[in-house]
């Protein structure tokens, strides 16, 4: 090997080693932090003489995460869920102190409702519901023979969990915190740079449909990721919390701008496809000033401020050149389509300006109260899926409860508790059967390790320091496994199973027979949860749910056409993005399902936005009574067509839109409505779109060429 080779290869090897070490270091930092929190919580709980220090210790494992913000967010929702669950448990025990059947029924129903509620929320909010469900079981089941003890049981549970949360929150926040704020900042910057760069680079005009779809998919993902990050970061950083609504505004404006941008490019593509090059080229010419305006270093934050005056300048230039460029077109159809495109472009520039403005003030040191408008980020929820989750959790509980009563199994309560916990915890994961299976294997390994630890190690040691030395090595293996992507659920099961069955307390009981019986009961409970997932398959990821989500997506057009107007634009955008990203996450990239979905999402987006703008403009001024019925009819038939697409309603919608356009032509002063309707019409007649399947076999050749 020559000297030159050596000098180039040595730094890269060193870097590879350094990278590997850094990765390892973050894993071990996680292990050290979690163990610290684990034993500190246990020690305090023992000093306070709480009945089950093991619960506080288990809590630190459940909320353990590499990111401090995630730990705090999960802790917050765990605290809420625990409080709610304990309250309900007291209520249920008070209502049925003597009757075990209605008691189990009420408890099962509550757990089911919580499991259902969990599927309606993303992030850790769903976790609060799960917690509410199983905390009720944890508080109520042990006191089933001793109802007056429920208040003490509830208090013990609450203090143990809160203590665990407090300790792990403090440890994670103070010892080498790993901040998600930086990730959030980077994500926001990347989103801005990517989108604005994309807009700048595509001023050339024509873009393949494929590229557009991919870019759109990326933008949707970026928006949803940012929203998810934001919801966790607000817990770790009070500055981020103060700026939270501004960040939402930034995200909403991003969604609006990306939709308009995409509509614009579809319009240009359609004109190109119909060989109407003059109209398309004139539009591209009109669009050029934006590319020039954005031709500056693109960076979110104060640096973005330089773009603002340039965008205003570009807007002025475009406004000036619209009429001159329109005059160069002699075909009235060309001019009509050009004007439609120009109004779309004007909307896009306004939205881009608002977006850049929001990006520029992302990092101002001081946030003035109430300076930003409140923005809601709506989600698209499926209540039937939630009903299914409710049904599964309730049935699992009832079956286990009946089995417990029928066999008089002394440790039936253990099985029931575990089944509740896991049926709830994994109901929202994409593939719960596999995850539960892995966790179960890990759990059994963890319990085996706990057996060795308890009866061969702990029996020989004395004092808390030696207890730490005895337990830590066994637990550390599980925690390291938690951090490896392949064995994450296995490791989680390991750590939880070990912490749960050890149940460390002040006067530790060493009873192998009870240990083994309890372990069998817990494994049976886990198995029951896994079987429940197989018998009543989760809705998430199934073709059935995907069809429902697609229908929901299409009905967004009806929402755009008929829902009350105030705030509708944000509502439409955010529900759309949520639904879209949900289905995208659950389909294979490039599969037929995923392609159909993307095609529909684009059609829905475009038409929906145009309808909202149309209704907005309609509400500005009183319309002639001879015109209004036609517009309402167009809105109505479009809504029905998207709700239930078939060739007949397609024809109805197409004709209604054509009639509305014609009747606008008969009135004066209403031409401002025309552009939106043209946009809807072009989307309807686009032969490349998903709507092509509903078009009549013999297309009206002249019509399509004219309008597209």
């Amino acid at each position, binding site marked *: 090997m020559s000297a030159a080779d050596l000098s180039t290869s040595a730094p890269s090897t060193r870097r590879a080693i350094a990278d590997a070490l850094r990765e390892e270091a973050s894993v071990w930092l996680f292990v050290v932090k979690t163990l610290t929190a684990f034993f500190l919580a246990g020690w305090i709980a023992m000093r306070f003489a709480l009945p089950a220090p093991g619960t506080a210790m288990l809590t630190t494992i459940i909320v353990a995460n590499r990111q401090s913000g995630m730990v705090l967010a999960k802790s917050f929702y765990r605290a809420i869920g625990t409080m709610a669950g304990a309250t309900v448990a007291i209520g249920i025990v008070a209502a049925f102190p003597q009757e075990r059947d209605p008691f189990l029924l009420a408890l099962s129903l509550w757990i089911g409702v919580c499991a259902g509620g969990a599927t309606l929320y993303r992030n850790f909010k769903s976790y609060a519901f799960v917690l509410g469900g199983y905390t009720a079981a944890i508080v109520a089941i042990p006191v089933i023979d001793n109802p007056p003890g429920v208040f003490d049981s509830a208090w013990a549970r609450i203090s143990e969990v809160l203590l665990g949360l407090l300790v792990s929150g403090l440890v994670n*926040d*103070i010892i080498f*915190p790993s901040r998600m704020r930086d990730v959030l900042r980077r994500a926001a910057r990347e989103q801005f740079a990517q989108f604005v760069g994309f807009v700048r680079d595509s001023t050339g005009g024509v873009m393949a449909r494929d590229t557009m779809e991919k870019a759109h998919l990326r933008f949707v993902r970026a928006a949803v990721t940012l929203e998810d990050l934001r919801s966790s970061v607000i817990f770790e*950083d*009070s*500055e981020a919390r*103060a700026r939270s609504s501004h960040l939402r505004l930034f995200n909403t404006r991003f969604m609006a701008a990306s939709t308009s941008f995409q509509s614009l490019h579809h319009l240009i593509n359609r004109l190109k496809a119909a060989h109407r090059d003059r109209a398309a080229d004139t539009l591209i010419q009109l669009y050029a000033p934006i590319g020039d305006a954005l031709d500056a270093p693109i960076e979110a934050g104060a640096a973005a401020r330089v773009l603002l005056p340039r965008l205003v300048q570009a807007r002025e230039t475009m406004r000036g050149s619209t009429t001159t460029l329109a005059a160069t077109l002699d075909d009235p159809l060309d001019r009509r389509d050009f004007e439609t495109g120009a109004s779309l472009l004007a909307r896009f520039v306004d939205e881009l300006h608002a977006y850049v403005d929001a990006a520029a003030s992302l990092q101002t*040191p*001081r*946030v003035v109260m109430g300076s930003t408008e409140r923005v809601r980020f709506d989600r698209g929820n499926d209540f039937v899926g939630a009903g299914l989750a409710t049904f599964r959790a309730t049935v699992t509980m009832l079956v286990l409860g009946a089995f417990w009563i029928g066999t008089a199994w002394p440790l039936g309560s253990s099985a029931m508790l575990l089944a509740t916990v896991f049926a709830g915890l994994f109901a929202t994961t994409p593939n719960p059967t596999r995850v539960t299976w892995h966790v179960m294997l890990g759990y059994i390994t963890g319990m085996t390790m706990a057996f060795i630890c308890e009866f061969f190690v702990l029996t020989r040691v004395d004092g808390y320091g030696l207890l730490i030395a005895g337990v830590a090595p066994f637990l550390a293996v599980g925690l390291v496994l938690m951090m490896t992507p392949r064995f994450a659920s296995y490791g989680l099961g390991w750590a939880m199973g070990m912490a749960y069955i050890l149940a460390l307390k002040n006067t530790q009981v060493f009873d192998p027979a009870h240990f083994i019986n309890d372990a069998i009961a817990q494994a049976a409970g886990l198995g029951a949860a896994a079987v429940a997932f197989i018998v009543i398959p989760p809705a998430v990821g199934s073709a059935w749910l995907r069809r429902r989500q697609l229908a929901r997506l299409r009905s967004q057009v009806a929402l755009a056409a008929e829902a009350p107007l105030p705030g509708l634009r944000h509502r439409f955008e955010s529900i759309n993005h949520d639904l879209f990203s949900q289905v995208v996450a659950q389909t294979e990239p490039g599969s037929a399902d995923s392609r159909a979905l993307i095609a529909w999402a684009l059609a829905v987006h475009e038409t929906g936005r145009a309808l909202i703008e149309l209704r907005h403009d309609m509400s500005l001024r009183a319309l002639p009574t001879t015109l209004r019925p036609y517009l309402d009819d167009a809105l109505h038939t479009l809504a029905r067509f998207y709700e239930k697409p078939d060739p007949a309603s397609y024809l109805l919608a197409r004709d209604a839109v054509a009639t509305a356009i014609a009747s606008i032509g008969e009135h004066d002063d209403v031409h401002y409505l025309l552009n939106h309707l043209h946009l809807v019409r072009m989307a309807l007649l686009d032969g490349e779109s998903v709507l092509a399947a509903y078009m009549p076999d013999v297309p009206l050749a002249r019509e399509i060429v004219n309008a597209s």
Partner: protein
Amino acid sequence: MPREIALGDALVPGLLVLFVLSILLLWLLDGLAGRFGFYRPVWHPPLFRLAVFVCVFGAFALFLL
């Protein structure tokens, strides 16, 4: 300082009540500090926050009751 406080006939440790009160106060202070950017010159905000909490809790226990 009373060892226990009766809240609706349920005896609650006095220290716990103070603890919850100081957490609420800390939450308020934290929000204000975040809104006006007071954490910018601080090296380790969580540590600083913990220190503020210890001060608040200690002051409550010493002076309030």
